[in-house]
């Protein structure tokens, strides 16, 4: 065999790289977290950069327990195909171990299979569809702070109790909106109410809801159920006021965040009922968390999704420390199983437990939006109406039909 200059060169290059490789292997392992959400569309404020900030907050507070932690993020633009290719790239090329946030149910469902195939960890905070822990469940998955069933039960239940027995739905035409509408319909029917009609509008891209609002008005229903989120909810409430719907119907924003209330302003939003599992002014611990993270996101205070990203990251890192980072990197299912066994405790949601199907049982709070006169300071928006404990707030385990749950 003749030794060419190229072989010599590559041999030299390889030998010089060797010590480097070894040094890396001896060093501490790195846990890599990928935050995937909407950073430019209708869900920017409800998740977006503030979710990334809260994730980094958790990493910072967790400190160094013998391994490094790195956080990267990307904008999925609410497109399932784009999200799937980002996630594949993250797992295959960038070595991401845990996928976080992922709002927009259609996107959240689309990446479920990829995470399972690659045996990584998937902690969903931003998406709502209860199918994620039901028919579409996965052993690599935990759903953190809310879902469509819990929203329907808490907000919908309260509306029916207050006499809102006939409903018209305005629904974003994709996985989330449909699921929320069907969960709420089931609840309304069970409570003896009825659904008079619904309009499903194209998502994303609809900004004018006037047509649907006029249809809702002529249906004669008492309640307008908004099965949408983020910027869509803000626009539909604004336009409902413009067309005088707030005088003839009650509005039920089935999914609304404090960030949406902020965008609407209290004079429009006052009196609305909504459900979140976190509010910054709930107790000393939530206030303490908010004060720590507020300087980093002064214009967008944390809502339940942001708090969820913090809480999920913290619990994940504690689990990694408990089982060893190298072990945690190897097996996603084992890590998730360990996370389910360990008690969850943090400033945002207090002590909670994670059920076998991946449902984190956080308490649900029904809030009412304050009037401008009642609000005492910036972001002082909510009055607590009722708290539902975590074990009652969510769909019973047996009703979810998750394939790995044995009845």
């Amino acid at each position, binding site marked *: 065999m003749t030794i060419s200059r190229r072989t010599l060169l590559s041999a030299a290059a390889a030998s010089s790289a060797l010590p480097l490789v070894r040094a890396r292997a001896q060093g501490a392992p790195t846990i890599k977290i990928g935050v995937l959400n909407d950073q*430019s*569309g209708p869900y*920017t*404020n409800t998740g977006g950069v503030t979710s990334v900030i809260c994730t980094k907050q958790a990493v910072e507070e967790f400190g160094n327990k013998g391994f490094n932690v790195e956080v990267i993020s990307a904008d999925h633009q609410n497109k399932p195909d784009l999200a799937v290719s980002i996630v594949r790239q993250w797992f295959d090329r960038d070595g991401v171990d845990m996928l976080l946030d992922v709002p927009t149910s259609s996107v959240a469902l689309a990446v479920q299979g990829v995470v399972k195939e690659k045996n990584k960890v998937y902690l969903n905070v931003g998406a709502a569809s209860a199918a994620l822990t039901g028919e579409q469940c996965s052993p690599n998955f935990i759903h953190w702070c809310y879902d469509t069933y819990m929203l329907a039960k808490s907000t919908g239940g309260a509306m029916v109790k207050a006499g809102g027995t006939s409903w018209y739905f305005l629904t974003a*035409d994709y996985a989330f909106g449909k699921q929320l509408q069907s969960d709420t319909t089931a609840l309304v029917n069970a409570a003896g109410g009825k659904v008079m009609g619904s*309009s*499903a*509008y*194209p998502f994303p*891209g*609809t*900004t*004018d809801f*006037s*047509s*649907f609002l*006029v*249809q809702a*008005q*002529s249906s004669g229903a008492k309640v307008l159920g908004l099965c949408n989120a983020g*910027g869509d909810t*803000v*626009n539909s409430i*604004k336009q409902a006021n*413009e*067309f*005088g719907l707030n005088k003839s119907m009650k509005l039920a924003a089935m999914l609304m965040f404090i960030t949406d209330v902020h*965008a609407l*302003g209290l004079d429009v939003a006052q009196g609305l009922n909504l459900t979140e599992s976190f509010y910054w002014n709930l107790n000393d611990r939530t206030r303490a968390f908010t004060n720590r993270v507020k300087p980093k996101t002064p214009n967008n205070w944390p809502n339940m999704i942001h708090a969820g990203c913090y809480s999920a990251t913290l619990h994940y890192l504690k689990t990694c420390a408990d089982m060893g980072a190298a072990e945690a990197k190897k097996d996603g299912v084992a890590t998730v199983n360990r996370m389910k066994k360990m008690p969850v405790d943090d400033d945002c949601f207090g002590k909670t437990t994670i059920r076998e199907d991946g449902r984190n049982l956080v308490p649900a709070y029904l809030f009412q939006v304050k009037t401008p006169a009642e609000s005492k300071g910036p972001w002082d928006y909510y009055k607590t109406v009722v708290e539902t404990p975590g074990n009652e707030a969510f769909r019973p385990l047996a009703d979810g039909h998750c394939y790995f749950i044995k009845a």
Partner: protein
Amino acid sequence: MFMIFGIPGPLLFGQLLLGLINGAFYAMLSLGLAVIFGMLNIINFAHGALFMMGAFVSWMLLTYVGIGYFPSLILAPLIVGIFGLLLEKTIISRLYKLDHLYGLLLTFGLALVIEGLFRNAYGSSGMPYRIPSVLQGATNLGFMYMPNYRGWVVLVAVVVCLATWAIIEKTSLGATLRAATENAPLVQAFGVDVPRLITLTYAGGVALAAFAGVLAAPIYSVNPNMGTNFINTVFAVVVIGGMGSIMGSIVTGFALGVIEGLTKVFYPQASATVVFLVMVIVLLTRPRGLFGKAA
């Protein structure tokens, strides 16, 4: 209650009216596009971004300077028009000798840059802009609750559209303009400064977009993406109406607004698609558009 096609009459009338309101925006935007295309042969993809700028400038005038809605209706188009003038003078005018495609790519790039800058500075969730107090409230029309402001939008849009049409088709200035597009060297030989005329036409088209932006500000929240939401539909309107036809784009704008409105009653899921369906049908049967002149 009487029924039409199984839909209560009042509901149908309501939808027709709402369709006209949306149509007003389509008409105003496609009008500017048609003027620019007809006179300059530039496919102005930056139109949506300039529409958005109109809304943002009126929001800035209110927030930073305290200038209200009505002065904004004049000032914002003026400011954005001057911006358009600079854009034409410095960048776009270099492309007249090249294929249409270059103008399209350049303006598309410009749109991305402008929207990106605004998104960076103001975020993407939108700024609220209040309806001026004179136009607040709603009128009960019997079949629906009509917000006064939306009525005002339709009224203003019709006036502006007809005025633009009259200027281009009925005045001597319009005649010179049309002559310049037909045969620029000849018109120049008569002592008309054609490059300046073209610059001013572009600025005029841009000002129309900005004007629509000011009208839209109180209805939709003022956000960097508001132009993108409209621009695809508006291009379809221009294509259906016949590229460069002024009256064509006005009539088609209103008509498509109404068609979209009706789709929202019968099958709302298709409301975003119906415009393009019409476009396909028109292109198959009348490739030059409904009002396009034969070559």
